[in-house]
C-alpha cells in the first residue's frame, strides 16, 4: 500500500471511528485495537464493520469480521478490496 492510499484510508477511518464511538479525538494507527477504545465491544463492532463496508463500498468476509486483530489488518483488506477509497 502506498503512502497516499494509506493516508486516505486512515483519514476516512478516523471519521468513521469518531462517529461510531462518539469521540472526535480518536486517531487510529495500524496498531489500534479494541483494547485501545473503551466503547469498542461486540455490539459496536458490528456497527463499525457496517459503516466501513458502506464507506468503502466493499464487504469483509465472515472470518475477517471475527478475526481482525487491529486496524492495520483492516486497512490491508480495505486497500485490496475497496471499490472506492
Amino acid at each position, binding site marked *: 500500500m502506498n503512502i497516499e492510499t494509506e493516508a486516505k484510508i486512515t483519514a476516512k477511518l478516523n471519521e468513521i471511528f469518531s*462517529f461510531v464511538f462518539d469521540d472526535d479525538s480518536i486517531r487510529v494507527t495500524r496498531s489500534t485495537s479494541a483494547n485501545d477504545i473503551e466503547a469498542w465491544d461486540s455490539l459496536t463492532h458490528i456497527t463499525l464493520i457496517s*459503516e466501513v463496508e458502506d464507506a468503502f463500498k466493499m464487504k469483509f468476509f465472515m472470518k475477517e469480521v471475527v478475526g481482525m486483530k487491529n486496524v492495520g489488518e483492516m486497512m490491508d483488506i480495505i486497500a485490496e478490496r475497496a471499490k472506492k477509497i
Partner: protein
Amino acid sequence: MAQLGKLASNIPEGLPGYRLAVIGDCATQHISKAIRGTGAAKGLAISVLDTDYDQILAQTSDPSSELYEFAPDGVFIMMCTEKLYDKFTHTPDSERAGFADGVYAWISARWDELSSGRKVSILQSLFTEYDDRVFGSFASRLKTSFIYQLRRLNMLICEGADLKKNVYPVDFQYFTSKYGTDTVKDSKMFAIAKLPFAASAIPEVASAVVDIILALKGKSLKCLILDLDNTLWGGVVGDDGTDGIQIGDYGTGKAFTAFQKWLLELKKRGLLLAVCSKNDEDKAKDPFINHPDMVLRLEDFAIFVANWEPKPENIKMIRETLNIGMDSLVFIDDNPFERNSVREMLPEVTVPELPEDPADYVDFLRGEGLFEAVSYSAEDGGRTDMYRAEAGRVLASKTCGSYTEYLESLDMKAEAKPFSSFWFPRIAQLSQRSNQFNLRTVRYTEAEIADAAADKDAVTVYFTLKDRFGDSGLISAVIMRKLDDETLFVDTWIMSCRVLKRTMEEFIVNKMISSAKEAGYKKVVGEYLKTPKNAMVAEIYSKLGFNRISDTRFEADVASFKYNQSFIKEL
C-alpha cells in the same frame, strides 16, 4: 444506524413517552437502539427494555419476569426467518404440513400470556419471505415446503391479530421487496452475531415498529394538502387551460393519473385531501369539473383553497377550518420554494421532498411510511364528506352578515317521522352514546326502541338534518308516552351536539307539540333529570315555550302553544 444510535443517547426532554419491551429469538440490541433513536427523531421518547437473546418464552410465561416488572405499554416480538427455518428442518416430513399451525399455536399462547389481565399492545413481527429453493416454484403449491408453511404462518398471524384486537403485525416485507434480500439480509451478520437484518436495513426495521407505536399514540397524519400545477397534473392550468394540462393519456399524464388514483385510495381509507394552490379559484377548479380524465373531483376534497396568498397562511387557515392538529398535516408540492417556506414557517407540518420526475411521485411517497393505521372501519371512508360540510359551514358563516342570514343560507331540511325499523340501530346507538343533549338519560337497546315504535300509547319521532353542505343523517329522537288521556310525557329527547345552534331544538319542540295535537292530546309534559354531563339542556324547555310546573317538570298547552321560529323546513 450509527446515526440513530446518537439520537438514542440524546433524546430531547419533554417528548411524550412510551414503554416498549423487546423480546426476540435473535439479537435485538441494535434494533432496540434504533427504535429509541427513530422514536426521538419522530417526536416520541421510547424507553426500551431490551431483553436477553432468545428469551421469549421465559419472559412471557413467568409473571415475575423483568418484562412484566417493566410494565410496558407495548411488547415487540421479533422472530426471524432463520430460526424458523432451523425449526422446520428439525420437523419430520410427516408433520411439516402442520408446521405453521404448530408455530402459530405457540405464538398465540405467548400473546395470551402477555394479555392476561394486562392492557398491552403486542407488535408481532411477520416472517420475511425466504425460499430455500429446494423445490423451485413448485414449493408454492406444496404443503410440506418451507415457503408454503411460512406464508401460511404469516396469514395465521394476521388472522389471529384481527381477532385479538391488541396484536399488530409488523410487516417487513414492504421494504424487503423494495430493496431485496441481498441488501436487507446479511448472512455473515446472522452467523456471527445472530443479527436478523443487515445493519443498513435496521433503520427501516425500527421505522416499521415506531410508525405503529405513533399510530397507537394517535399521532398519525390525517390530511394531505396538495398543490395542483405539476403536482396533480402536468403543466400549468392558468397558462395551458383545462384542455392543455397533462392527465390521462395526454403527454406524461399517466404518471399524474396514477398519483391521483393513489390519493383517492387514501381518501377512501379516511384521510382528508385539501387543495392549496396559487391560482385563480375558477381556473383551478375547472379541470376537476370539466376534464374527463381527472380521477379526483371537487367533492373528494375537504377544502379547496386557490388564491395568491402565501401558502403557509393558507395552510394555517385550512388547519383552523378543519380543526385538526398542525402535526397531522402533510404538504405535497413540486416547488422547492413552497416546500421550504412551509418547513420554515410551520415546522410541525410534514413536508416530504418530492422526486424531480413526477413518474416517481407515487413510489417515493409510498416509501415514506406516512400513513400507518391501527384500525379501520368502513365509516372512515365517509370522513371527507363530514369535514367538507363543516368546512363549508365555517366559510359560509364568515361571509354572511348575521347569524340569521347564515342560517337561512344553509337551506336546512329535516325529516321528522315515527320510528321505522331502518333507523332502530342508529336510534339505539344515539341513546347509548348521548350524554350532553339528553334530557332524562334513559338508555335504550335496539329491541326496546322497536317496542316503543310499536306501542300504541307512545308517540315516537326521529329527526334527520341536511343542508346545502351535506347530510348529517339521523341526529335526534323523541319518545313521548301517554300519561293520561290528555297528557303526553316526553320520556326521551336526545340530540347529537353536532347540530346545536341551528334552530333544530326549536324545530323539534314544535314537532312535539304538533304530533301531540295530531294524536289528540291536550298537554305535553317534559322533564329534565340532571346528570354530571347534561347541564347544557337544563333550561331548554323553559326557553322554548314550556312552563315550569315543578323542580324537574315543564308543561305546554297544545292549543295555545306559541311555535318557535326555526330556519329548518320539514321534508
